[in-house]
C-alpha cells in the first residue's frame, strides 16, 4: 500500500511537470535564436532553427518522462 501511494505521488508530480517541461525549451530556443541572430545580424535564420530545435527537444523530453517506467519494466 505504502509503495503504491508513493508511486501515485511520483506520477502526479511528473504529470504536473509535463507542461513546464514543454514550454521551457521552446521559449529558450526563441531567446537563444534571437540572441544569436542579433550577434551575427542574420535574422531570422537562427530564430527559426532554434524554435524548431526547441519543439523537438520539448517532445523528446515528454517522451523520456512518459516512457521512464516502461523502460524499467522491459529491462527486468
Amino acid at each position: 500500500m505504502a509503495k503504491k501511494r508513493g508511486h501515485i505521488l511520483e506520477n502526479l508530480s511528473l504529470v504536473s511537470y509535463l507542461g513546464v517541461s514543454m514550454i521551457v525549451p521552446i521559449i529558450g530556443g526563441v531567446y537563444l535564436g534571437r540572441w544569436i541572430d542579433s550577434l551575427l545580424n542574420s535574422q531570422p535564420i537562427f530564430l527559426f532553427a532554434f524554435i524548431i530545435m526547441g519543439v523537438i527537444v520539448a517532445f523528446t523530453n515528454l517522451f523520456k518522462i512518459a516512457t521512464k517506467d516502461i523502460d524499467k519494466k522491459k529491462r527486468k
Partner: protein
Amino acid sequence: MEGFGPRIAFELPIFGGIPISDTVVNTWIIMAILIAFAVLASKKLEKIPKGFQNVTEAIVESLNSLTVQTMGEDKLFFAPYMGTLFLFLLLANLWGLLGLRQPTADINTTFGLAIMTFIAIHFFGAKSKGIGGYLKGFFEPLPFLFPLNVMGELSTPISLAFRLFGNMVGGFIIIGLLYGGLTSLSNMIGLSFFPIFQAGVPIIFHLYFDLFSGVLQSFIFVMLSMVFISMQMD
C-alpha cells in the same frame, strides 16, 4: 506603489555596501530555525524515544522511506539532502502565512536550489555510469541528436526553478493585491478603524496559495529532484 520584487532590507557596510534583500534575511531566519531544531532534536537521544524525539524520528523515517520508495534502496544516502531540501522548502513556502515574503518568491532562491539539483544529477550520473558511459548517454539514441540532448538537460533546472518560483510569486502577488483591495473596501464603508474584511476573507486564499500550493510545490520539487537523479543514475 512599489513593485512586488524583493526589497532591500539593509546594506552590509563592506566592499562599498552589499545590498541584502528581505529574501536573504528570511532565508537566514529559516536557516536559524532549522539549525536550532536539528541541534535540539539530536541533543539528548535515548534508546526508547519519548515526546520530542518521537516527532523527530517520525520525520526522519518518513523522509527516508520516501527516498527509498522513489529512488530505490541503494540510494538512501540522498535522504539527508532531500530531507533538508524538503524541510527548507516547506518552511520557505509556508513563510507567507506569517505575512512575510516567501524566500521562494524570488527567482534567485529557486534557481540556486535547482542548480544544486542539476549538479547532483550530472555528478552522480557520471559517478555511477563512469565518465565514458555518462558522455555516451548524450549521443543516444542517434549521434546527431547531441545538441538536442544537451538542450534537454539544460532545460531541466530552468523548468524546476520556474515552476516553483511562478507558483509562489503568483500567490504572493494575488494575496498582496487582495490585502490592498480589502483595505480600500474597509475604508470605503467607513470602517478604517476596524478592518473587518482583512480579518476573514483572506483565509481561503491563504489556505489555497500558501498552505496547499506551498506544500504541494515543495513536495513536487523534491520528488522531481529524486526522479531526475535516479533516472540519470540507472
